[in-house]
């Protein structure tokens, strides 16, 4: 029973390690006498399984080796290289932070209307006051006559409302 479990444990190892060493490991298991020694090997097998999957991604598949030839340089290739899961998590985290920062910078610059009240309050240290312009708007500005206009610290914000929907049917 323990041998069967140990064999299953070996089958769960990464393919390259399994192909190369599982028969030898099973051979060592067969030479152990007693339940205590077998249980110790089971524990060792579990540790090995975790170690191979978590800490040895470079050995999941057979490493690609280029045969050296005289006078020809041998280049290292990363074809069979697989990064550790921890590196992937770190990379994902850094990418998310950078992406979020860029989005924030692009969407909410200091001159963006959404941030203007906040910036005005920050600069003046006072409460935001909205007021309608007292002087009549110039006659050539049509939007200002129809839409409310707010002035804050010398900046003018136009609040443009959507036009009401027409109730009259369109004639063909």
């Amino acid at each position, binding site marked *: 029973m323990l041998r069967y479990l140990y064999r299953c444990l070996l089958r769960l190892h990464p393919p390259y*390690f399994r192909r*190369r*060493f599982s*028969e*030898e*490991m*099973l*051979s*060592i*298991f067969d*030479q152990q006498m007693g339940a205590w020694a077998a249980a*110790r*090997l089971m524990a*060792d*097998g579990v*540790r*090995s*399984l975790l*170690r*191979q999957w978590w800490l*040895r991604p470079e*050995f999941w598949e057979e*490493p690609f080796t280029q045969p050296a030839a005289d006078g020809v340089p041998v280049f290292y290739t990363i074809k069979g290289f697989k990064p550790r899961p921890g590196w992937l998590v770190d990379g994902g985290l850094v990418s998310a932070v950078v992406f979020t920062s860029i989005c924030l910078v692009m969407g909410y610059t200091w001159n963006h209307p959404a941030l203007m009240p906040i910036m005005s309050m920050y600069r003046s240290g006072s409460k935001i006051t909205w007021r309608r312009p007292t002087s009549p708007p110039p006659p050539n500005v049509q939007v200002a006559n129809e839409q409310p206009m707010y002035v804050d610290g010398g900046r003018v914000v136009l609040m443009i409302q959507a036009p009401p929907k027409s109730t009259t049917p369109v004639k063909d």
Partner: protein
Amino acid sequence: MRAMKEDLSEFLPLSPATLHILLSLAGGDLHGYAIMQEVKRQSEGQYKLGPGTLYDNLQKLIERRLVQDVGQRAGDDDPRRRYYRLGSLGRAVLAAETTRLEAVVREAKARLHAARPRRA
């Protein structure tokens, strides 16, 4: 020679498992189970190497060309056994580690000797 030493320094210091495996193979070609037995003998039973740790280290040593896999041998009791051989680079690394450890032991002895309380 100096370049060779600099190259070897990247392997040092060796982990206990690696040191014991290289030391076991320094006496000749051995299969996995024999390496485990040899390590147990060297350490007088204090360091027991499991198959998982053994083959994990062998995998790395073969990849770094310190140890060679010489395959199966005809006439062995168990045909599943494969034999491993210490390569020339492995032997050089083992020698460098031994020199390093000698220096450590020498330094430790000198300090312990200096710190020993004198008799009145």
